[in-house]
């Protein structure tokens, strides 16, 4: 049971070949760029399988097996539809894992951060103190950024609606 929970934690966000549909007419392109060669037009509601993401682009397999790139924001996944019935069970499984030391292995319902638990929560000062002990200084964060080759840029906030 515990191993299953670990496996679920390791599952990549975008599972391979995730079914998706297009929200507008668009083009299937050879590479992830707006000036890349167009392989085929794709119509609104066309079904594709999403394979991987790169920046604002997602590599998809279109009907007929043709692969290429579409703008990521053109895609909506089947999550809202009938394709995915039922619960992933993540919450229940993790609860079993968390209470595993008790040896009972009985899921006692959803724990943690649901509305009821939040409403009834008592302050936990010990955890808050621990949290404060983990904070990073500005200088440490700058060093961390440099080691990841993150460069700060000046960018204005967008105005509402664009």
């Amino acid at each position, binding site marked *: 049971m515990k191993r299953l929970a670990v496996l679920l934690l390791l599952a990549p966000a975008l599972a391979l070949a995730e079914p998706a549909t297009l929200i507008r007419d668009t083009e299937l392109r050879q590479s992830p760029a707006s000036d890349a060669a167009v392989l085929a037009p794709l119509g609104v509601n066309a079904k594709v399988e999403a394979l991987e993401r790169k920046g604002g682009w997602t590599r998809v397999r279109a009907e007929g097996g043709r692969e290429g790139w579409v703008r990521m924001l053109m895609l*909506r996944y089947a999550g809202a539809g009938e394709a995915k019935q039922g619960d992933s069970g993540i919450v229940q499984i993790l609860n079993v894992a968390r209470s595993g030391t008790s040896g009972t292995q009985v899921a006692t319902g959803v724990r943690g951060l649901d*509305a009821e638990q939040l409403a009834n929560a008592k302050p936990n000062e010990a955890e808050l103190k621990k949290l404060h002990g983990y904070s990073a200084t500005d200088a440490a964060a700058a060093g961390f950024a440099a080691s990841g080759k993150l460069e*700060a840029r000046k960018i204005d906030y967008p105005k509402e609606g664009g």
Partner: protein
Amino acid sequence: MMRRLALACCLLLAAAPAAAQFNINLNRLLDVGKNVKKATTDVDEKEEVEIGRDMAARLLGAAPLAADEALQRYVNHVGRWLASQTERPGLPWRFGVLEAPQLNAFATPGGHIFVTRGLVARMTSEAELAGVLAHEIAHVLRKHHLKAIQKGAQLELANTVVGTFSRSEGSANRREKLLAAGSELFARGLDKDDELEADRLGVVIAARGGYDAYGLPAVLQTLQAMNPEDSGLALMFKTHPAPAERLDALEKIQSTLDAYAAQQQLAARFSGALGR
């Protein structure tokens, strides 16, 4: 019932220093409304941080920190770096991963930011984590929680809250009431427009930090791809616009997204921090 209401109004007017007359006066009530608004607008930075600290302690009472110091420090580095790119770098920013299977993230006023283990587990890169943290940072920058508390106070004006947040009260009492109102927001959520604003600002803050601007949209797409009935999503979906709607809204700033899409994703560093 009527009598009790009249009594309440009398007490209320008597409590206001300038109230000389005892008849029910609509203008007077409206003035009290303005005072509530002013009182919460008046929350200074020190008080903002205190309320947020108290709210954070409550949140940690519902779910403790993930027992992984390396992960906690990692998230603090990412978060602190992002916060340094904003107009409020001097706040006491703290970041934490909550040991909870649900997928969610929270901010409290003054700079406490949390993300659940359940959500982190669904991410694939540091740029995605940065996008989520930056969304929460934006709530703090724009004081969305204080705004919501103030709005709630106005809505409840006709009932019991009149004067709730007035400065004339003992400050401990005031702090307690602000905490209660603020903590309610965890389950009730913020304004939809504030969520969408936090998405727009979050994308920019992550890009300022040198991250692939599509990190946040990628997380939204991950959520959109999940079964909306999933029990791990219940609270997040109750308190936020649907992921598809948020993605629609972000399309309006696609030019900004595209301009910074080629920046760092740091998938390997993220996986390392998670011990994958």
